[in-house]
């Protein structure tokens, strides 16, 4: 993956993986993911570079907290040079969970077009410590370059009626379908249904997507799990 490093990699019609690949190739990090978001829960993961990046992406979605949410809220980079010992009041649970995956430090950069905040690039390193000024500058510059293709891809995916595939941006459609089923089962609002789904997954130490799949396939009915 690191065999060719150029200053000006082509971007145009590349598959989305290369958007994450840009960060991994040009910034000294272990992995990256790019997420575009609407409202809470309406996250579309555009790309992930590796297995740990997948888990970090999932962890933030499942917990509803993490550097991504901080960046989304503040519009500024959220950085933890040591996820285990650092102090990050906005995400008390994520840090320890990330450390258990073998992650040392995380760096979330906002993705903007003009002044509008559209998403986040989550970078991680297995080691702890600062990213450094040059690498930080580079990461910010790549975040600017990936904005337009990332948004185009998220838009295409959201307006398509095709189900999520392994390669397409994951909007986690089953999670939203399960939310729709739960809101009927319990006669609650969509937001409450989503919160219950997330809470149940957390209490069972399972991913939200995993529990959602059980709901959609009618192996789990929330009328039976009201706690």
């Amino acid at each position: 993956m690191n065999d060719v490093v150029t200053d000006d990699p082509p971007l145009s019609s590349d598959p989305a993986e290369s958007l994450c690949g840009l960060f991994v190739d040009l910034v000294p990090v272990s992995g990256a993911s790019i997420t575009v978001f609407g409202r809470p829960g309406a996250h579309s993961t555009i790309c992930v570079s590796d297995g740990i990046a997948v888990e970090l992406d999932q962890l933030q979605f499942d917990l509803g907290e993490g550097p991504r949410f901080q960046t989304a809220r503040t519009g500024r980079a959220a950085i933890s040079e040591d996820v285990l010992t650092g102090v990050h009041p906005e995400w008390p649970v994520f840090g320890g969970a990330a450390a258990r995956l073998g992650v040392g430090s995380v760096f979330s950069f906002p993705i903007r077009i003009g002044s509008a905040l559209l998403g986040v690039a989550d970078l991680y390193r297995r080691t702890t410590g600062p990213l450094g000024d040059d690498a930080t500058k580079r990461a910010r510059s790549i975040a600017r370059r990936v904005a337009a293709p990332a948004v185009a891809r998220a838009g295409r995916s959201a307006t398509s009626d095709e189900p999520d595939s392994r390669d397409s941006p994951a909007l986690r459609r089953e999670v939203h379908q399960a939310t729709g089923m739960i809101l009927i089962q319990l006669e609650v609002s969509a937001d409450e249904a989503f919160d219950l789904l997330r809470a149940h997954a957390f209490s069972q130490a399972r991913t939200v997507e995993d529990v959602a799949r059980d709901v959609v396939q009618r192996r789990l009915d929330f009328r039976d799990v009201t706690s």
Partner: protein
Amino acid sequence: MNGTSREARLNAAFVAVADTLTDHYDVVELLHTLVVECTAIVAATAGGLMLADPLGELQLVASTDESAELVELMQLAAGAGPCVDCFHTGTPVSVPNIATSASEWPAFRAAAREQGFQSVHATPMKLRGEVIGTMNLFKVAPGALGERDVAVVQALADVATIGVIQQRISAESQIVAEQLQKALESRVLIEQAKGAVSQVTGLSMDEAFETLRQYARDGNLTLHAVATAVVDRSISAEFLAELTRARRPAQ
């Protein structure tokens, strides 16, 4: 104006224009500052600034005074006059003596003379070849602007043009962001509505989607509107299911 006070005046003008370029500046205020400062610097009597609208027509957006006469004069100049020539060529148009100027501008010439103006100088508002409008300075005395005045006015116009274009890019990016968020939210709502219909009817997600789509089509509604109504339960999913059964009596 002597050298020192002129310098001070110029510095103040640049500061005034730059000052309006804060985080959330107002474009009209920026352009008003520009035209007022430039009018003073070249000792003109009146000034007006026109920007092209989306159809390419010049519209007056800022002027040193709001008198109907000046507005009318600017409109004439934008129809057939120095403003439109400046806008189309992207170069300054200087008319040192309106009385003896091009005969193809009869209405503009008549109106200008009626108001006592004898000369006018039009400065393009342009950035990298794109002309977005013109600034027009009228004097009661005849004569062209000095070279230095022309350069100073152009420099101030350039600064303001950057401000206008930046603001437009920012407005466009806001639209991109809103469209994306709408698309994402719409998709989330549709998936939730599929789940709700599926839960009530026992239909598969695909069939639930078809039911929603059919209902939207029959009622001439958007899928987004139907999904919203199902999720907030202003249409019950049972009702949709009834319709589906009525449509497909035998399976």
